[in-house]
């Protein structure tokens, strides 16, 4: 496959819109930013630019990672949280975004509870729009940092077997990861209760394997990605209780022993310790959770640099 050298997209709205060569280009860019993660190191590639974090859904981790990424590149950052936003006063998203645009901003990083909202905003604005999570649709930077971490650990993503375990139905992380890992040539298994991992997912994503037996899901994978069980989103109809979820699908040391010796455990955070994963596993030798967090900054730096760069070009 020909290596792509030029990034042309002003927006990152989803993995769906990316080609494999674009993902690989982005990884090469992120590689170059890794040294800048050390304390005291920073770059000035985005000096004079302004990034607005428009977070219309609560988030600490992703927002902070985007803020640090932009600052490491020398950009100014303004964060708007849902309570501070005028959207609560009934203004439309288009109006809010056009007002931000009018103030001379270079990029908007948006988290929004509505699926498709990032794509919508990208089509409305001529500045960069980066999706920091749109409803149950996509969370592309999370998938990119996950794949980047796998690539770092295993040298390449191609041919890896990755199990995504938990609430697939409501998860934007799962959707982006299914697309990203498939594009990079990994084999994806989806596992969890049948209500959260419905058989119809196979129609939506024909390349995946679906299993409801935890041992089967874990035994030959190279990595297991745990998803946060977000009880607030699942009505009681999707599983009986957190306790029952843990008893069936929680990852503890005993079950982690089903994994291959070199297999790693990943989690997008924040972790519900004792629900989807026990501390012994989350903090154990298989865990790459903090590497994921660290890589998340480099990957988001690459996203901001490439997308804003595509406009000035």
């Amino acid at each position, binding site marked *: 496959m020909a290596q792509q050298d030029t990034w042309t997209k002003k927006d990152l709205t989803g993995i769906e819109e990316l080609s494999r060569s674009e993902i690989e280009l982005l990884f090469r860019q992120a590689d170059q930013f890794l040294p800048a993660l050390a304390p005291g190191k920073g770059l000035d590639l985005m000096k004079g630019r302004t990034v607005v974090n428009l977070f219309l859904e609560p988030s600490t981790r992703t927002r902070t990672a985007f803020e640090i990424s932009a600052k490491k590149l020398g950009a100014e950052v303004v964060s708007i949280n849902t309570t501070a936003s005028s959207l609560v006063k009934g203004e*439309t998203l288009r109006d809010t975004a056009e007002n931000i645009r009018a103030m001379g901003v270079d990029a908007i990083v948006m988290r929004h509870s*509505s699926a498709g909202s990032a794509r919508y905003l990208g089509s409305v604005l001529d500045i960069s729009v980066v999706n920091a999570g749109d*409803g*149950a*649709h996509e969370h592309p930077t999370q998938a990119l940092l996950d794949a980047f971490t796998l690539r770092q650990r295993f040298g390449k993503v191609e041919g890896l077997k990755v199990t995504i375990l938990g609430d697939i139905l409501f998860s934007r992380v799962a959707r982006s990861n299914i697309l990203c890992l498939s594009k990079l040539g990994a084999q994806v298994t989806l596992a969890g209760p049948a209500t959260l991992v419905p058989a*119809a997912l196979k129609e939506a994503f024909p390349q995946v394997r679906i299993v409801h037996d935890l041992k089967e899901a874990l035994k030959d994978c190279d990595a297991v990605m745990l998803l946060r069980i977000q009880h607030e989103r699942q009505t009681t109809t999707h599983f009986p209780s957190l306790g029952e979820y843990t008893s069936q699908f929680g990852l503890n040391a005993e079950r982690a022993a089903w994994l291959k010796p070199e297999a790693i455990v990943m989690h997008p955070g924040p972790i519900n310790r004792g629900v989807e994963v026990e501390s012994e596993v989350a903090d154990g030798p298989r865990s790459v959770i903090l590497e994921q967090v660290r890589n998340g900054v480099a990957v988001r730096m690459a996203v901001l640099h490439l997308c804003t760069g595509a406009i000035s070009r």
Partner: protein
Amino acid sequence: MNPADNSPLWIRGARVIDPSAKRDEAKGDVFALDGKIVDQLSAADQAKARVIDGTGLVVAPGFIDLNCRLGEPGRTASETIRTGTRAAAAGGFTTVVTMPDSLPAADNVGTIQLLREICSRDAAVRVLPTGTLTKGHEGKALAPLGTMKKAGVVAVTDTTSGVQNNEIMRRALEYAAMFDLVVLDHCQDSSMTDGGQMHEGAWSLRLGLRGLPRAAEEIVVSSDCLLAELTKARIHLQHLSSGGSAEIVRRAKAKQLSVTAEVSALHLLLTDAALANYATSLKTNPPLREEADRLALIAALVDGTIDAVCSDHSPCTATEKDCEFDLAPFGAATFETAFAAAHTALVAAGHADLSVLIARLTHGPAKALGLAAGTLKAGSLADLVILDAKAAWTPAKSDLVSKSGNNPLVGRALTGRVRATFVGGRQVFGA
């Protein structure tokens, strides 16, 4: 021409299709005098008649729409009776049945009288109001069906709210039947569709949108058929969207149950794949479903399981639809393109002859509601439409008459076009 011109009308040499009389003449004439269809004009009337050369065109009874909204009262930002009925005329519809979920709802005589007053002043086509089945279409207590019937409603329905309680539906059917009022039902079990944005399937899973499963519709189609059997009352199932629903209706009709059904033109043409880019203009309730559903609906329309094609014209403002998908209201404004959409999907695609589609736009809906319309028989109202079945066109914003901004077929190539529409012998649309 002057729309007020009421001179005799003589359409010559057109293909004449009138399913109510099993008439399909390759080259025939249609005459109208004093607002009525006549078999022949006298020599004197011929001399002063307006003569239209129908060569290459089709004359049919004006279309009857069993499912539309005209914005009044209360939603005039999206549509008014004036704009909505002109859009209907542009779509070949001469009789339209409006849904009662206006603001306030048509659950009382006053609102229905108001609607009729506005119509007598502003309407370009015949508007037949419906009333709600329950007060405020809340599904709790019956609306005053008898007095609303006296005020002029032709049917009752809780429209998109549906009726979620089988006991209320059963009693409503029995009570409405006493007044010879057909109950229209939007079949949906709302406990299964809460938060739903589109058809539940591969596309909703990919897009991360909550789904409205087929079963939510089919469960209520089934219960309605069972209640029709129990009560012997007339029930008409609105805009079916799933192939399974059509099969349930087919079985009910085989048992001679008094059930009729409709499908929207949009559901004959498109599937959920058209929502791949979160097109809010195609966010409808019921949702567009899969190709297998679309083909099953076409087959059911052709074999008569489904009686009528409706527009399901549901106007929204451009602003209302210019937002995040899950915040956009349901509905598409489709009057002007309904015939072309159905013709493209059904006739141009080779599934049926034009006469079948005309039947489902005229005689079918007339029979479903017992309306004296949808026919070219002598003595009937001179409501008729002139069509160019071969015309290929791509609807542009400038072709739309509706005040709303949510016609999803703008820019899509279609075949079949309405050339002129007459109500009571007077032209209401066309050059």
